C-alpha cells in the first residue's frame, strides 16, 4: 500500500530530482565538481530564504495564535487570514526613521543586531532536513544518507559553539545603547545564556555518548534503527527543550527584555530595521532550536518508516515536526508567566546542572556495562527519581509557602466583604 503510493505520487517527483542530485553531487573520487558547487550555492540560498520567510510568518502566527488563545481576532485584514501582515510590517519597518540616539556607541550599536541574526542563521548549515535510504548490493543492508548544506563530522559541537555566539548581539546592543534599562537587559542576557548553555551542552552529551558520533547524520541514522532518542533520554530531551527556551529568550525566560521591568530591555533604544533584526534573530533562533530538538531527540526527518517514501517525505516530516515545536514556543509564551530572575538562576544552576551531570554519569555507566536491559531501564529510573524529587520539593514548598488565607492574622477576602455587607 505505502509502496504503491510511493510509486504513484512521490516516485514521479523522485526521478527528476534524483537526476538533479546526481548532477549536483561530487565526482566519483569525492572531488568538487562545478555542478556540486552550484548545487550547494542554490541550497544555501534556498535554506536561507525559507528560514527568513518562516521568521516573518512566525510573527504573524504569534499574533494570530495569541489572539486565538485570548479570544481576540488578531491581524486579519492584510491578505487572506492576515497572512500578508508580515509584508505590511516589513514596509513599516523599512520606511520608519532609523534613529541612532546621540549617546550610543555607534559602531557597537550598529553591529549588535547583525551579531544576533548571523549565528542563528549559519547554525542551519549542518542540520539535515531530509535524506535517502540506500541499499548496498552485497549484504542488502540499508544505510541512511542525510542531506544538509555541510556534512560536518563535529556537527553537534559546531551547533553548540555557534548558537552560543548570538548572546553577543544582545549584550553589546544593551551596552552600546548607553541606557540603564538596555544595560540591565544586556547583563541579564549574558548571565542567563551562560547559565543555560551549560545545561544545553550537558543534555547533548548522553546523545553523543550513545550514538558515539558527533555527526548529526549518524544521530538520525541511530534513531532510525533504535527509536527516538527522546524515549532513551527523556530527561535530556526535557532539559534540552527548556534550555532552548532560555537560550532564545522566550517566555517564561524572557528576562533580557521583560517589558514590565525594563521597558523593552536590550532593544529599548532601537528603531526601524535594526529593531526588526533583533526580532528576526529571535525567531530564527527559535526555528533553529526547534530543528535541533527534532534532530537530536525526535528522529529528525524520519517517522517510523514513512520517510522511505522518498526525499520529499523527509522534508515534509521534518517541517511538520519543526512547525509543531514552533507552535509550542507560542503556546508556552501565552500560557506560562515569566519566572523571577532568582528562580531562573536557581533553576539553571541548582536543578538542571546537577540533573544533567547525574544523567551523563548514569548514561556513561550504563554504556560501560554494555547490557541492553540497562539502557531500557535507565529512562524509567530517571523519570521515577525526578518525580520523587519533584514531589518532595512540592511537599516542602507547601509547608513553606502556605496560602495567605491560611496564615494567622489574615482574614480571607470573602469573609471580609461579608462582614462589611452585614455592617
Amino acid at each position: 500500500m505505502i509502496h504503491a503510493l510511493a510509486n504513484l505520487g512521490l516516485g514521479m517527483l523522485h526521478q527528476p530530482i534524483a537526476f538533479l542530485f546526481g548532477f549536483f553531487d561530487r565526482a566519483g573520487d569525492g572531488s568538487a565538481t562545478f555542478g556540486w558547487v552550484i548545487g550547494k550555492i542554490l541550497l544555501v540560498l534556498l535554506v536561507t530564504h525559507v528560514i527568513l520567510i518562516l521568521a516573518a510568518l512566525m510573527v504573524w502566527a504569534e499574533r494570530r495564535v495569541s489572539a486565538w488563545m485570548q479570544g481576540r481576532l488578531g491581524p486579519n485584514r492584510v491578505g487572506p487570514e492576515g497572512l500578508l501582515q508580515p509584508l505590511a510590517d516589513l514596509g513599516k519597518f523599512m520606511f520608519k526613521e532609523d534613529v541612532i540616539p546621540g549617546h550610543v556607541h555607534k559602531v557597537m550599536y550598529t553591529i549588535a543586531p547583525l551579531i544576533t541574526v548571523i549565528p542563528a542563521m549559519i547554525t542551519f548549515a549542518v542540520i539535515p532536513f531530509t535524506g535517502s535510504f540506500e541499499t548496498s548490493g552485497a549484504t542488502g543492508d540499508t544505510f541512511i544518507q542525510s542531506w544538509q548544506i555541510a556534512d560536518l563530522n563535529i556537527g553537534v559541537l559546531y551547533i553548540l559553539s555557534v548558537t552560543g555566539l548570538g548572546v553577543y548581539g544582545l549584550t553589546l546592543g544593551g551596552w552600546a545603547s548607553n541606557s540603564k534599562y538596555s544595560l540591565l537587559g544586556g547583563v541579564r542576557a549574558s548571565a542567563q545564556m551562560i547559565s543555560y548553555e551549560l545545561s544545553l551542552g550537558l543534555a547533548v552529551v548522553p546523545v553523543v555518548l550513545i550514538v558515539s558520533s558527533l555527526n548529526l547524520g549518524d544521530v538520525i541514522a541511530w534513531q532510525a534503527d533504535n527509536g527516538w532518542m527522546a524515549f532513551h533520554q527523556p530527561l535530556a530531551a526535557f532539559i534540552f527543550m527548556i534550555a532552548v527556551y532560555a537560550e532564545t529568550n522566550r517566555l517564561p525566560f524572557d528576562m533580557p527584555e521583560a517589558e514590565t521591568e525594563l521597558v523593552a530591555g536590550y532593544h529599548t533604544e532601537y528603531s526601524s530595521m535594526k529593531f526588526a533584526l533583533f526580532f528576526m534573530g529571535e525567531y530564527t533562533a527559535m526555528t533553529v532550536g526547534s530543528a535541533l530538538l527534532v534532530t537530536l531527540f525526535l528522529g529528525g526527518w524520519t517517522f517510523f518508516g514513512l520517510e522511505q517514501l522518498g526525499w520529499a517525505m523527509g522534508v515534509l516530516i521534518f517541517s511538520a515536526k519543526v512547525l509543531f515545536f514552533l507552535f509550542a514556543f507560542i503556546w508556552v509564551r501565552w500560557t506560562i508567566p515569566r519566572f523571577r530572575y532568582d528562580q531562573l538562576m536557581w533553576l539553571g544552576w541548582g536543578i538542571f546542572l546537577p540533573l544533567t551531570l547525574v544523567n551523563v554519569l548514569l548514561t556513561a555507566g550504563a554504556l560501560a556495562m554494555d547490557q541492553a536491559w540497562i539502557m531500557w531501564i535507565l529512562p524509567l529510573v530517571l523519570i521515577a527519581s525526578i518525580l520523587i524529587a519533584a514531589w518532595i520539593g512540592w511537599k516542602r514548598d507547601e509547608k513553606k509557602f502556605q496560602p495567605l488565607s491560611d496564615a494567622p492574622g489574615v482574614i480571607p477576602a470573602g469573609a471580609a466583604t461579608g462582614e462589611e455587607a452585614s455592617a
Partner: protein
Amino acid sequence: MTTALFVIFGATALASALLAVTRKNPVASAMWLVMMFFGLAGGYVVLEAYFVAAVQVLVYAGAIMVLFLFVIMLLDLRSEHLMEEEAPRMPILGVAAAVLFLAVSGIALLNAVDDGMFPDAAARATLELDGSARAIGESLFGTWLLAFEVTSVLLLGAIFGAVILTKRRLT
C-alpha cells in the same frame, strides 16, 4: 590555498590580539579578543583540527568571553578608572612574562623539532594523525592523562581562590 588561508587567519589573530591590548575601552578590548579566538579557530580549521576549532569557539568565544563581558558591564569599567589604577610596575612585569613565555615555548618547539614531531606530508599520512574527537580523546585520556589531571587541579585551585575571595567571613 591552504597556506594563504592560514596566513589570513594568523594575521587576523595577531592584529586582533594587538588591538585587544591597545584599546582603552574594555568592551572593545574584549570584542577584539573574541575576534582573535575566531582567528585562532580558523587556523585550527585550516590545519584540519576541527574538534579543537569547535571547542575553541565553544569555550572561549561562547562562554568565557561572555563572562568577561558580563563582569565588565556589571562593574561598569570605564577607561578613566583603568588609567588611574595603572600600576607603575606593570610594563616591567609584562616584559618579564613575555620573555618567560617565549623562552618556554621556544624550548618546547626546539625539543619537538628534535623529536621529529613535525613530519612532512608523506609521513603524516602514514601516522594517521587526525583532528577527530576520538584521536584527541585517546591522547588526552591516555598518553597525557597526568598532565590533564594536573591542569584540572590547577583550575580547582582557582575556583577555591575565587570562593575564598568572595566570602567575607570564613566560619
